[in-house]
């Protein structure tokens, strides 16, 4: 069993600057930040290494950090440009009984994160959901299409903070 500080030190030793930092100033468990282009090999290492054995991806969630510059349009709706979208990975080891949270941030304008489909098969639908709701592109995902919204949904990604709902979908009025 390892605590987050120890895990961070071991990862830092193995991967160097790919591991961006450890955020201890959170109301929950400390969060390790990782470069989005190399999350797959970090994940494989966390799963296979004898000290970690993170065999269970409990959840993968997308987050809109909404930290770009906001501009209001004439309806008072926000449009955000710049800033980041993030993906959080909550890992658990069923063998060593420890947990860790991994975070990776990517650019809002071109949100690309490496898929961890090859490491934890659970991430298949979770990544599809993050794509569906936030528009995060998971590179090397075998089947990245919408999972909850209709396949022909063109209005954007609903959980982004500057999302605007369309007036009509297939001839049906959408607002109340």
């Amino acid at each position: 069993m390892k605590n987050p500080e120890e895990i961070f030190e071991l990862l830092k030793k193995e991967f160097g600057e790919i591991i961006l930092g450890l955020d201890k100033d959170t109301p929950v468990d400390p969060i390790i930040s990782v470069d989005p282009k190399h999350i797959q090999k970090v994940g494989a290492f966390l799963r296979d290494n004898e000290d970690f054995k993170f065999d269970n991806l409990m959840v993968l969630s997308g987050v809109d950090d909404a930290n770009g510059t906001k501009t209001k349009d004439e309806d008072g709706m926000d449009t955000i440009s710049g800033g980041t979208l993030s993906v959080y990975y909550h890992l658990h080891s069923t063998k060593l009984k420890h947990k860790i949270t991994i975070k990776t941030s990517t650019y809002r304008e071109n949100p690309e994160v490496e898929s961890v489909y090859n490491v934890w098969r659970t991430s298949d639908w979770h990544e599809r959901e993050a794509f569906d709701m936030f528009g995060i592109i998971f590179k090397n995902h075998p089947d990245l299409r919408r999972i909850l919204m209709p396949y022909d949904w063109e209005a954007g990604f609903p959980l982004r903070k500057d999302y605007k709902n369309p007036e009509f979908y297939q001839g049906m009025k959408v607002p109340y």
Partner: protein
Amino acid sequence: MGLLDKEFSDGNIVIARAEDLMNWARLSSIWQLGFGLACCAIEMMATSASHYDFDRFGVIPRNTPRQADAIIISGTVTLKMATRIKRLYEQMPDPKYIISMGSCANCGGPYWEHGYHVLKGIDRVIPVDVYVPGCPPRPEALLEGLLKLQEKIRNESMRKKTA
């Protein structure tokens, strides 16, 4: 009912208007499309089960739209589902009836403002005969809705569809 009171002295003959007979037959065996959407569907299933016994009104679930008479919209209709419901409705033969069950199907319910994925009322897609309020409605409320629908069918005219 008005069917059996015009009985002749010979017990084997009953006189009735064709319209009354048709309506009586229709309202006494409403086969509902076996179809549920959300928590309202749990109440609908409870209504079908032995305590409330939908079958005593002739309502049984039929698992094909081609042989169903009514469809109970029992739950939140998402935009994705609305297109499917429309197709199911179009596959049902006339005469066909719709009971909109619960707040979500009636008007969007708790999703009315922030539900980007919810159709705000099934009547935007298909014509509704009876609205049953509630979130979810109790089985008694759904039974009341069914009785309202039966009443509507009883007063139907063969020349003009009213329900």
